[in-house]
């Protein structure tokens, strides 16, 4: 009988954990679906809000923070033409989420990539004025992400993209971007996500950028 009670208690506890975990899986799945369907900046912002809500409830998970920041940055990049002030506010908010994620997973290369992605958005506010100060910061951050995980394809994808957009006189240009984009394509081919929710984006972007080199 005693044994039965213990077994039942364990069963109940693991079921509760399972239920909680299932709830997380389900919420993340739905949120990723919402993000995948996002077309407008508002869609991206709503997806970011959904991830932010999950992040608020799951304080030990870095992925919700990651996707909240990622969605906000996508919204921000879409707004650079029409509303730069809001785009910059989104960059700041995304950086806060990246930092929150880094508290949970300090060694996570993906978060560091996102940090650099946010800096790139900040740079867009005034490329001529901010360029000299922020370029080094962006390369340094991506270097850090590379050191944390040399197999992360998004490091090379983002760095290749950035180099492609930096004029040659300032240390960028196609020749500079080429080795990174090559590495990115290789890394995407070999990339195995650590979990079903791990970031997988950027492959199409890397392929498109690679065509620009020719």
């Amino acid at each position, binding site marked *: 009988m005693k044994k039965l009670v213990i077994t039942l208690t364990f069963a109940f506890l693991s079921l509760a954990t399972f239920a909680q975990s299932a709830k997380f899986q389900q919420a993340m799945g739905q949120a990723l679906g919402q993000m995948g369907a996002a077309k407008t900046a508002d869609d991206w912002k709503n997806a970011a809000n959904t991830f932010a809500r999950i992040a608020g409830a799951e304080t030990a998970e870095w992925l919700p923070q990651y996707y909240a920041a990622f969605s906000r940055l996508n919204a921000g990049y879409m707004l650079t033409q029409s509303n730069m002030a809001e785009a910059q506010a989104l960059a700041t908010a995304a950086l806060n989420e990246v930092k929150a994620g880094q508290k949970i997973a300090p060694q996570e290369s993906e978060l560091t990539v996102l940090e650099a992605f946010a800096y790139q958005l900040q740079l867009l506010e005034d490329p001529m004025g901010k360029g000299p100060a922020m370029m080094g910061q962006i390369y340094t951050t991506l270097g850090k992400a590379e050191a944390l995980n040399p197999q992360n394809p998004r490091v090379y994808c983002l760095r290749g993209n950035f180099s492609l957009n930096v004029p040659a*006189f300032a240390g960028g240009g196609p020749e500079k971007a080429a080795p990174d984009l090559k590495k990115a394509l290789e890394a995407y081919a070999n990339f195995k996500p650590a979990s079903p929710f791990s970031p997988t984006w950027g492959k199409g972007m890397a392929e498109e950028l690679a065509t620009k080199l020719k």
Partner: protein
Amino acid sequence: MKRITFAAILFCTAQILSAQTQIEGLLLSTFGDTIIGANVVLRGTYDGTSSDLKGRFTFNSSEKGAQVLQVTYIGFDTLSIPVNLNGQTIKLNLKLKANINQLSETVILAGTFEAGDSKKAVVLKPVDIALTAGAVADITGALLTLPGAVRNQESGQLLVRGGSPGETRTLIDGMYVQSPYNNTTGNMPARNRFSPFMFKGMSFSSGGYSAEYGQALSSTLQLNSSDLSGKNVTGLQLMSVGGGATQQKSWKNSELNLGGMYTNLKPYFGLVRQNFNWQQAPVSGNVEAGFKTKTSQTGMFKIYATAAQNSFDLDAPLNGDDRNMAPLQLKGDNIYFNSSFKEIVGKTWALFVGAAYSNNRDRIQQNFNLHRVQQSFQSRFTLTREMGERVKLKFGAEQLWSEFDETFIQGERFHTLRRDQNLAAFAETDLTLSKKWLVRAGLRSERSSMLQKAALAPRFSTALLLGKGEQLTFSAGRFYQNPDFTLLRRGTYVDFEQADHFILGYQKQVKGYLFRTELYQKSYRSLVKTNAELLNNLGSGYARGLDLFWRDTKTIKNGDYYLTYSYLDTKREQQDAPGLVMPTFAAKHNLSVVYKHWMPKVQSILSASYAFQSGRPYHDPNSKGFNTGRTQAFHDLSLTWAYLTNIRNNFTVVYLAANNVPGFKQVSGYRFAQTPDANGQFYGSPVLPPAKRFVFLGLIMTIGEKFSKNQDNNDDF
């Protein structure tokens, strides 16, 4: 048994799921705006939603009992309110409060031109200043293309809306700069001492400025030094007229800057013919050092010191008669020191404390001998507090001690020593009356120990936001200034000089375009007159006009231009003028066109500027009137070519600038002999610049963190 338990658990879960509570509501800002896309969530749960295009939100939750509903939205304070979930629909009308930082970003634009990267009202950036053709990286040169500024080719100084050079006050980090220009004499134009790259932004006020500042009848130029850059960089400058080097060293929370520069125009003058006969070409050198450190998360301490020396010797007309030349020799020394500290105290107060010291010495010799030392020491503090989202309060006090010590020998010896201790206090409040209506009102009191006078200066400005990027502004204020020390050689029994400003402005900014216009009226009172037996304050005057500014960065691909026009109507009775006359430093029409073109293929920025100014008055002692002569109109067309490249991976700019390319004759006035000739005529001759054209070639190289530092596979170019 097991099966029953499992079923029971499932049943319970289903129970919980079925007992849902609906939460709905409307989100508005405290100013009544719809809040779209705010995140609404029951804290600690997944339950929530985003507000829709009408600010509404609806969601269901299976949670029970006391919970906290949290609303987050960028730029607004997070709202948390307790709710009780019991199955009954909860309806809420919520107001979100704008984050204070967000609101205070809105600035009242009247009379102010901002240049920097932080504010919305950006007109010029430091890099624009470096690339404005005709300016040759001189801050003043670039500002002269803005509306309200009046060119004075012979002085090189910033004159604003009919004001004399002394009516503009230069400030670095809010602290007084006594001698912002290098030492000069004999119609040799001066340059601003400071490099535009030292500053993260500048704010040029052409009138109606804040009660925070005083002792300037016309305008203020505020230069704000850069914060920590986190970089270790060496800068090298090679120029056709000299060279310089800077070194920047960064630590985690601090930064050290060292620099030095030497220029000598002798080789250049050997190549290009000059209007002046130089005994010794201009030579100058300066050294500077700066240190900045973050004292806490919010505190910043800065210290900056510079010392400079310059000299030249040229043949100049003796007693105003250019048929009779004699060497005119100048030696100048300058020391400037500035330190400031900013910190948030007691969570809500922003404290600023600063101190500045200037020491400037001129030694000028011809058939006279002039030795002049001017010193000043200033200390000030300000405290700022945001009181709620609608009220900002700022107050402070300052002390400015200055000394003027001059010995003039021409046969006789005249010595003037003047000292002044100026004490001032101010209070100012920024009120956000509605989302569209901002008011700033302030009061400043000043007391001068030398004049033994005190004065009270009210200032007021208001902005009405008409739409996105569109605002109407009005500004009025009273401004006091000590008469220039050079007017006080005979005595100090006079009062402050005074000016009242009224400015009405309109601005519209849409992406890529900026239009701005201002109408102003300035009334001068109690100006010092020197043509009576005793000095007196019986002078007066006015300046009124219209400024226009248009900038377009969109229409031309890779092109960016701006147009400014200023109309100025001004007369003054001051110093030795017998009545209301137009002063020699004023011009009725001022026009500038500045164009920059970025050519990515050849990595170059080509810049051109054209300036027009209608004739300026001069006084002809052979005519009956006073200041009735008019010079011919002034034209200038300047070009700058900047080539951006990298040498061994170090960012490098090669810079070629040519001023007055077509070689227009630029007469800034006429000088007349002090004594009449045999026919009773005063001999006159035009005042011309040192050379028809000026050509400058330079190379600026920044040796910093290598771009390839983190890309060891990529340094193959």
